[in-house]
């Protein structure tokens, strides 16, 4: 059993078992009271979340150990890119509880969430792009969410369990920086569902990459497949002289080298373009506003790769389940 602690007494029934704290082996174990006081069995909400998310075909997490590398910008544009195909339904879930940026980037500031019989209704950008964020639950732009871990976990659970996405093809989950509560909870709550994988974002400089290496480590610890690495903000083309300069120098080889070292796919580089930031501030889609930027094409290529990955993975898992039967 996986839930037996390493230093447990012999014959430990496992902390998740119905016998926890009651078996004869538990006599004298320092954790006996803890085990017997704990609610028994797996968290019932995880089954509920599984039930709720059966209508979601693909789930993609956007992660990065480092903050401000463009997770939310990437999430928003991945969603825009996926939703460009009108036959696809796309959802965006923002689990960055303390610093939700998604509402602004998608132009939904000040929107509210509505409750219906089937759960919380997400906010729609277009007919096929739905969004849920803690930003929709705040009373104003000054409102701070000063919560410790357990409260954040509760919120994330509600987002996963109670939001009525309907039948959607892609759910893109935007995360805060780090490897803590939000990340552990999200992956734990999604453990019974089929998650396609995580896209890791980084910027080229070592200070950012060292945090992303930690995130790779995290993904391996929690058995989360990695779709690939995207290097953002690599190189800046001056709009006046069109010469390229390096703003965040890749002193250790950048994202590409890191991906090669860790043996994961490198999805591509996105150049810095001041117009991307401007579009995000105004809540517009960069794809519609600036069609000629080199970043637009690079972005579209990366989205294609992610789509490919998801469709292949879908086939694979269908084969897998076939074998089990």
């Amino acid at each position: 059993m996986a839930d037996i602690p390493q230093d447990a007494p012999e014959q430990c029934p496992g902390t998740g078992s119905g016998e926890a704290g009651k078996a004869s082996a538990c006599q004298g174990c320092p954790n006996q009271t803890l085990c017997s006081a704990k609610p028994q069995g797996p968290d019932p909400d995880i089954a509920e979340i599984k039930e709720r998310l059966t209508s979601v075909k693909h789930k993609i997490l956007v992660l990065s150990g480092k903050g401000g590398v463009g997770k939310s910008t990437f999430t928003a544009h991945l969603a825009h890119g996926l939703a460009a195909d009108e036959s696809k339904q796309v959802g965006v879930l923002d689990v960055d509880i303390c610093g939700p940026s998604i509402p602004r980037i998608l132009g939904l500031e000040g929107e509210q969430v509505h409750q219906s019989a089937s759960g919380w209704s997400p906010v729609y950008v277009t007919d096929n792009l739905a969004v849920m964020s803690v930003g929709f639950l705040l009373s104003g732009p000054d409102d701070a969410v000063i919560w410790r871990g357990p409260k954040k976990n509760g919120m994330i659970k509600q987002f996963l369990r109670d939001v009525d996405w309907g039948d959607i093809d892609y759910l893109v989950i935007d995360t805060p920086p780090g490897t803590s509560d939000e990340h552990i909870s999200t992956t734990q709550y999604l453990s019974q569902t089929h998650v396609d994988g995580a896209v890791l974002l980084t910027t080229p400089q070592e200070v950012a990459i060292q945090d992303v290496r930690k995130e790779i480590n995290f993904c391996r610890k929690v058995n989360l497949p990695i779709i690939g690495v995207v290097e953002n903000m690599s190189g800046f083309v001056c709009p006046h002289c069109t010469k390229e300069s390096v703003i965040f120098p890749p002193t250790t080889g950048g994202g590409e080298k890191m991906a090669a070292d860790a043996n994961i796919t490198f999805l591509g580089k996105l150049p810095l373009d001041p117009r991307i930031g401007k579009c995000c501030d105004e809540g517009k889609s960069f794809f519609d506003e600036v069609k000629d930027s080199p970043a637009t094409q690079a972005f579209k290529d990366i989205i294609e790769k992610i789509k490919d990955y998801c469709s292949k993975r879908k086939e694979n898992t269908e084969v897998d389940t076939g074998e089990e039967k």
Partner: protein
Amino acid sequence: MSAPRDHLSTVKHVILVLSGKGGVGKSTVATQIALSLRDAGHKVGILDVDLCGPSIPKMFNVSNQDIHQCPEGWLPVFVDKEQTLGIMSISFLLDNQNDAVVWRGPKKTAMIKQFLNDVYWKDMDYLIIDTPPGTSDEHITVMENLKQYNPDGAILVTTPQAVAVGDVRRELTFCRKTRIPVIGIIENMSGFVCPHCSECTNIFSKGGGEALAKQSEVPFLGCIPLDPQLTQSLEEGQSFADKCSSSPTMAAINTLVKRLMAIDRDLP
């Protein structure tokens, strides 16, 4: 057990570096302030409470050092022989720099408490506390434990674009709720001067930090332009001040530090 240690009471000034947003340059600003204060003749400590993504050791090129224990507590890692700049970070406790610290709140809280109580800062003039992004466990713990030491206040770092400023607004509310004085707002990464044609481009727009400071009635401490040399020197763990003392970025940092020291003199 002996009575709880009280090392922080020997530190004259405690300054927090905060930002709701990640990657805006909190650690960079903390590093530069510390270096400038040291150059002005003070003894400075940096406490890195970003447990999941510590950057400070890398910026001083001391990632592989270990923490030593002395009878008074944990000794910070000093970057110089004269012991004028000491650092404490979780990164010194990791066996492997790639190890992820996959911890939930309570464990992080305990670690930070230990950092605050057990590190022997030895009569530092300034202690700069570098924080992770957000307004959660780390921040609440630091505030709760610092209150009794009467910290000078918090410096909020932002980048100019509205997406970042939005998060920093929330951090301001956090400061008000926890009653920590706000020293002011710094706008980092404002404008990039192209090395080829010396035309200035506002990559992340401009003026967001100043507008926020005005609107929230807190002091605006200045703009730090984007400078690839600064990033480069931090990557290599070298002092930016030694390398490019003539850069406008350095000028911005110096004015900022002068302001910091001036603010401190006004305090009782």
